[in-house]
């Protein structure tokens, strides 16, 4: 009897892993992901250089923006598969229930996250070959800089956040179009207006954090400086991603994930405010 139950449980886990693989593959068929990726590559290879540090922040993380929007849309489409009509969900009587299907859709995000990581690694390799990004001439420092590893992690974590938010939103609402519009507006607020979030403590709360930041020295003088917040900002992003994943998964496991995520996000924000001079 025990052996039978153990075999059934093992079969269940195997099927869940298989479902994760199917969902991962399905992200590869989403047009929004490939369009976003293409635009990101175009942006990354045509960086602005109007002011010192412009190409530095443009390439990482700003250029990842279109890809994030594409991943968000794919997440909404995938998460909302069972809610895209007035009809009941597919195979509601199947052993793998709605919660496990949501978990598989979240796990499948490993594909867009890996694509995001490849782009970032590519940018990093090219920039190291080319000698880094120009950050302006100032005494006692180099004229060019490379992104640190935590900085390179930020866009990858943003991909996870965009996908998880999309899956959660897709599962929550019946019509995908309004969600995509709201997502696009939020995307503009955080990406199109990234400069507005780059000072006065707001940087700790914004999903996107660009470096160098403006440090106000008083008397209308500010300094572009790299702040030691980026590592804790990544903790904040991990927290937000876990929260969104918890909301997508629902049930006991979802609630636990959301609580852990909110705690991490809170720790990330507080730690950034503590270590940041602005």
């Amino acid at each position, binding site marked *: 009897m025990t052996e039978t139950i153990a075999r*059934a449980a093992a*079969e269940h886990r195997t099927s869940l892993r298989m479902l994760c693989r199917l969902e991962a593959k399905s992200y590869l068929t989403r047009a929004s992901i490939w369009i976003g990726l293409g635009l990101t590559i175009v942006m990354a290879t045509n960086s602005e250089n109007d002011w010192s540090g412009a190409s530095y922040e443009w390439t990482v993380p700003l250029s990842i923006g279109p890809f994030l929007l594409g991943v968000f849309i794919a997440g909404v489409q995938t998460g909302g598969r069972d809610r895209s009509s007035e009809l009941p969900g597919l195979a*509601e*009587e*199947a*052993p793998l229930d709605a919660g496990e299907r949501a978990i598989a859709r979240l796990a499948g995000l490993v594909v867009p996250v890996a694509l995001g990581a490849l782009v970032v690694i590519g940018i990093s390799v090219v920039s190291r070959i080319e000698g880094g990004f120009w950050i302006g001439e100032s005494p006692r420092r180099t004229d060019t800089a490379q992104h640190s590893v935590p900085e390179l992690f930020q866009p990858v974590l943003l991909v996870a956040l965009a996908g998880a938010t999309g899956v959660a939103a897709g599962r929550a609402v019946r019509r995908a179009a309004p969600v995509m519009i709201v997502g696009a507006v939020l995307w503009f607020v955080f990406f199109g207006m990234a400069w507005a979030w780059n000072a006065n403590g707001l940087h700790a709360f914004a999903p996107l954090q660009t470096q160098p930041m403006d440090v106000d020295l008083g008397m209308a003088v500010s300094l572009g400086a790299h702040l030691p917040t980026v590592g804790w900002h990544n903790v904040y992003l991990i927290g937000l991603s876990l929260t969104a994943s918890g909301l997508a998964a629902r049930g006991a496991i979802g609630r636990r994930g959301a609580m852990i995520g909110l705690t991490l996000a809170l720790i990330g924000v507080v730690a950034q405010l503590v270590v940041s001079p602005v």
Partner: protein
Amino acid sequence: MNHDLELSGVEKRFGGTTAVDSIDWTGGGGVIGLLGANGAGKTTLLKMLATVLVPDSGNLRLLGHDPARADQRLAIRRQLGYLPQQAGLYRGFTAFDLVDYVAVLKEISHRSTRRDEVRRVLHDVGLEADMHRRIRTLSGGMQRRVALAAALLGRPALLVLDEPAAGLDPDQRLRLRTVLSHAGTASTVFLSTHHTEEVAAFCRQVLVLDRGRLVFDGTPSLLAATASGRVWVDDQPHPAALRSWLTSHGEVRSIGTPPSGAQLVEPTLDDGYLLLTSEIGTPS
């Protein structure tokens, strides 16, 4: 006696409406038909048998398990196939990919076994030539057959079908009868329908639901026999008839208490069903 389905005082309410009203019934094995008018509670009852809805009160046991308990519900679902009245299919998937996806949801994880099983069920419903077409390009009847194929996956011990013949052409209905009759030799097939001829053709047992209550449980021939001596034909409707309708032969067929000298005819399942539901609706 087969006890695949055990219902004891099962009730389901939606707000102030009682959809299923205190049903007591035990049975299983073979093909069982559920008849009832629109709003009689058939779909609600089938959803409970498919573990999609939980009864508000009463006891329900399916295949010897209690669906209210998560571990036992999982044990039921491993042996269950369900065709809802309208299935929410993923329109961007091909028929093959969709049934393959459902096969994974049903824990058929071994790749080659799964693919063979998907091909088998698509063949059974006559979709082998269209299996690589996207769902959105298939006709309503074909989409219905895709959903039926998904329900047939894994040769379930309990097959719950909500109006499986809806939207199918006569050829496909014939095919459906064959598939379900075959399934009924090894499993319990519980299906709802508006078509009494479906029930007469291949159901071993028939239940009639009226306003949430079970009002008949027996064989199709027994249901037809309830109208014995109470069906007649004439050239015009009789005021004492419970129901009258014009047949294709140009004569008026009536059910109820026949007038003296009426030309009595052999009752059909339709007559039995109509008489039963008409008498329930008539104040005594």
